[in-house]
């Protein structure tokens, strides 16, 4: 079993680039527009699911291992809770980066504005972490459902 026809494979490999970029865009702009970690991560996972269906499980597993995804998921979750821990000097989940002038630290202008991506403190960082976690977690779910727990054949 080596995936679908050549046409599907080619179209899938073309579509994966804009798909991943769009997912990353949604993750990165989570603090400015609707979207964020979960939505962007879902888009990335959908793109990977497209790859899985097009190329078949074997070649997909060769490129992206399930263990690596599980590891990535744990690390991203650890990063999320770690950022929450870093705010502990005043309170758990405290946004210690906002308005500090450093990374993502510019203060937000009140009212209608065109949006400044370099703002909102730890929220974009947490969005990245959630994005990675959701992308890898959903991909694991899709692989598991596709392969049927490895009991087929």
């Amino acid at each position, binding site marked *: 079993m080596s995936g679908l026809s050549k046409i599907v494979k080619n179209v899938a490999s073309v579509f994966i680039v804009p798909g991943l970029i769009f997912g990353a865009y949604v993750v990165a702009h989570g603090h400015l527009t609707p979207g964020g970690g979960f939505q962007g991560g879902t888009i990335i996972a959908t793109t990977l699911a497209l790859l899985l269906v097009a190329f078949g499980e074997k070649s997909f597993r060769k490129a992206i291992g399930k263990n690596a995804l599980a590891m990535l998921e744990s690390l991203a979750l650890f990063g999320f809770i770690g950022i929450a821990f870093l705010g502990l000097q005043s309170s758990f989940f405290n946004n210690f980066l906002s308005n500090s002038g450093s990374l993502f630290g510019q203060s937000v202008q*009140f*009212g209608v504005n065109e*949006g400044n991506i370099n703002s909102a403190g730890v929220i974009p960082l947490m969005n990245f972490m959630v994005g990675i976690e959701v992308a890898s977690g959903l991909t694991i*779910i899709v692989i598991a459902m596709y392969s049927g727990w490895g009991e087929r054949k």
Partner: protein
Amino acid sequence: MELIPFLGAALLFGIGLFALVFKRNLIKIAMGLSIIDSGVNLFLIALGYRSNGIAPIFTTAPVSNAQAAATMVLPAPQALTLTSIVIGLAVSALMLSLAVLLFKHYGSADARKIRGLRE
């Protein structure tokens, strides 16, 4: 207050509950649960609805500050709905996986046949 979204939510809730009680296929039961989930989500969204309101996003707001403050929708119900959608996704993924496993074990997706545990 717009009544139609609330009626729709109640209808979805009723349809889902009907499926849970009277449909014996495991996949249909999972679908019923998702329908109830959508009904509740629609209810939450309808709570936050405001006619002629705009989305609470400053970057795309087409109006001035004062108008924005007067016409923007409260974001809390939408945040609740998003969270509930995420949880609903987890539930349906888990439920469908369990249904697949049950089909493998019992050779059937009929709830009347899957009753190894009774009394």
